[in-house]
Structure formats: structure tokens, C-alpha cells
């Protein structure tokens, strides 16, 4: 064992050096090592027979219709005009069970940058964490590192309700299991089933993006706030067609979007 101590120290130092490399560099390395080619969706083969081509075109048509529906839905629902990009989740998974990540087929060439919001037809899925030329890694809503500024109020729609002052809190996923909303005062009139939306206060996410519904409310241990569990709106495990909100992350913002 003693003979191997120099080796152990050397390898630990080497790992520490890799650990301290900038995230932008290591993320690019990781994305290009796992998804080295261009867009993962294969182009249709011209040599194939007519029936197959027809089927390909039918699927492509259905795919485009879904994308169009998704874009038009958010165009009409959101209170602000945000440029959007349709994309597809082509892989969902992580070698570490502490993180919740997915990959989409859009990257810097399509104008995607880290910090942008991703949503499916039902609501917010997560944020772009790392980008390469044609792919991006998403940090999903249930990842323990993600914190989203949000609003909750009875009858709240699109993050706005002229009659009610919404309560502002932070949505996060403690230990990566389920969603919680924090910092909602005990006096706030929150009920089960109330919708939760992004606040858009930090400028990085559009205001009024659905996050989920209040599933369970209990007084928090501190006695000052609610302990609120949320049911996510988005299909976190099955969503394929997504939209990237190309709103550029504001400079000098805090880490909480």
C-alpha cells in the first residue's frame, strides 16, 4: 500500500486539476464526446422506396404540426413577446443519480445560450445548462441545483391577475425529489390547486410560464411560511417536443432565475 501512495496522490491531484477546469471547457468536451456528430435526427434517405418516404413525410408533417401548435400556444399565452425556437429532446439521462438532465437538438448555431428556459406544451421543463454547436444540455426542473423565482395566487392566469396580488416565492427540488415552493408567507391565501408561474422578475425567464399546481400545503417548521408541495405542469419524464425561449440572460443577474 505504501508503495502506491505517490500514485494515489498523483491521481488525486490530476482529478483536482480537471475539477478546477472552467465549466465552459469541460461542458463542451462532454457534449462533443457524447454527441460528436451534427444534429442527431437523421436526414431522410433518398434511396428508400416510396412507401417509406411517404411514411417519413407523414411523421415529419405530424412533427411540424406539433411544433407549430406548441409555438402558437405560447405566443398567445405569454404576456410578453419572446422569440422561441422549437426543439426536440433526444436523450434523457445522467450517469449520476444526483442530477436530472436531458439533451436537446439545438445549440449555439440555433442561438441557444446557457440560462434559457425550456418548456413543453404543459409548462417549464428546465433551463439550458451547457451548449455545443448543435446540442444543449438541460438541467431539469427536478434537479436539486435549480431554483426558480415564481408566483402563486388563487385564479392566477399567465402570471397575472388584476384582482389578486400574487405571492412571490422560489421553486426548488430538495434532494431531487418532487417540487417545493418556499418563502410564501403563512398569511398568503394559497389553496390546493392554485397555479404557480414563473415571475420573470430576474429577466432571464419569461413571466407567466406555468411551473405547476399546489398539491399540498402545510405550515413550515418556522411557523412563518407555508410548506408547499407542487405537482409539475410539464411532462418531465416523457416530453419530446419542446420550445426554447430565446430571451437572452440578463447581465449581472443573481443565480436564481
Amino acid at each position, binding site marked *: 500500500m505504501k508503495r502506491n501512495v505517490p500514485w494515489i496522490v498523483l491521481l488525486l491531484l490530476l*482529478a483536482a486539476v480537471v475539477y478546477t477546469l472552467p465549466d465552459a471547457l469541460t461542458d463542451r468536451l*462532454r457534449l462533443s464526446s457524447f454527441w460528436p456528430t451534427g444534429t442527431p435526427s437523421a436526414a431522410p434517405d433518398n434511396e428508400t422506396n416510396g412507401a417509406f418516404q411517404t411514411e417519413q413525410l407523414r411523421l415529419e408533417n405530424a412533427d411540424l404540426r406539433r411544433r407549430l401548435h406548441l409555438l402558437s400556444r405560447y405566443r398567445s399565452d405569454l404576456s410578453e413577446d419572446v422569440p422561441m425556437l422549437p426543439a426536440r429532446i433526444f436523450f434523457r439521462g445522467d450517469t449520476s443519480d444526483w442530477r436530472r438532465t436531458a439533451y436537446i437538438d439545438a445549440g449555439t448555431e440555433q442561438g441557444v445560450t446557457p440560462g434559457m428556459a425550456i418548456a413543453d406544451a404543459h409548462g417549464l421543463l428546465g433551463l439550458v445548462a451547457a451548449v455545443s454547436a448543435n446540442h444543449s444540455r438541460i438541467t431539469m426542473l427536478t434537479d436539486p*441545483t435549480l431554483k426558480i423565482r415564481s408566483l402563486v395566487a388563487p385564479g392566477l392566469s399567465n402570471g397575472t391577475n388584476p384582482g389578486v396580488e400574487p405571492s412571490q416565492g422560489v421553486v426548488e427540488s430538495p434532494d431531487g425529489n418532487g417540487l417545493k415552493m418556499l418563502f410564501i408567507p403563512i398569511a398568503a391565501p394559497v389553496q390546493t390547486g392554485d397555479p404557480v408561474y414563473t415571475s420573470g422578475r430576474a429577466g432571464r425567464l419569461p413571466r407567466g410560464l406555468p411551473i405547476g399546481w399546489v398539491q399540498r400545503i402545510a405550515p413550515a417548521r418556522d411557523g412563518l411560511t407555508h410548506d408547499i408541495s407542487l405537482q409539475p405542469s410539464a411532462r418531465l419524464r416523457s416530453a419530446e417536443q419542446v420550445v426554447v425561449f430565446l430571451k437572452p440572460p440578463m447581465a449581472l443577474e443573481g443565480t436564481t432565475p
Partner: protein
Amino acid sequence: MIRRRVLAVVAIVLLAGIQLIGSRFTDRFGVYPDTLLCAALFLSVRVAPTAGLAGAWGIGLLKGLGSAMPLGLDAFLFTLAAAAGLAVRDKMFDRHPVSQFLLTLPLAFGINMGYALALAADGASLTVAGCAGRCLFSAVSTALVAPLIFALLSKLLPSRSTELRIRVPAEG
């Protein structure tokens, strides 16, 4: 010999792929077994010490490539685990599934604690009870699959020593 080593490397890369792709199927309560850690521990107790340490480091780096965790963290923790495996390899009988389970359990728990600390340093929302439960659950699930991974890799990599037993019939 070289063919077997190449096959072992292929098997480890396949394990990484299985862990990446299969995580959605093996996911129970957000936890799944870390087959790559089992492979790193196998190397630490079965092959030459320097090769075992370097192998564990490489497997850690491979795991880091497919993860959103900081690159280098897995390599660091796997090297520590391999060093612990190296320290106990002469004191344990590594062929029995129970000893493989008992070797993997505390090391997997420690590695998960390492992940939790790294996430906490990154500002993740973690609770002590949730973290401890998650580390334990993950360690148990990893330790349960460890005998399977050890059995698979034993077929591909020769053991570090060969024990030869000869039964001599009693005279008369």
C-alpha cells in the same frame, strides 16, 4: 491476455452506456445502482495496484463525461475508493458475494456523501435527512449489484494471484 483486457475495457464502456441509458429504467425513487463504481472497486481489488488505481481514475472520468456533475469529481472520488479497496484487498476474501457487498456498501455510501457535499457547495437544496437516506439507498442498491459486476469482470480479467490446491491421498 491483451484480448481479455480489451474486452474488459469494452465491458466497462458498455457499463457506462447502460448506466446512462438504463438510468430511466432502473430509477427507483430517483436512485439507481452505480455499476461504474463496482467496476472501479473490482479493479482496485483484483488487478495490479497501479493499474487498479489508474483504471478507477479512468472509470471516474468516464462517468464524469456522461454527467452534469463537475468533471473530475467522479475521478477524484473513485480514486479515493480504489485506494480504500487497495488497503483492504489483502485482508478480505474478494471472491465471495457477501464480501463484495460489504466492500461496496461503505465505499458507495462515502462516495454519495462526496457527491452531496459537492452539490451543497454548488448551492443545491439538500436536507440532512433526505441526503442520508438517499446516500444509504444508493449505496445499498450499488452494493446489491456489485457481485454481478464482479462476476462479469472476473470472466474477462485474470485474477491477481492463482491459488492451486492439490489434494494428496493419504498413504496406506
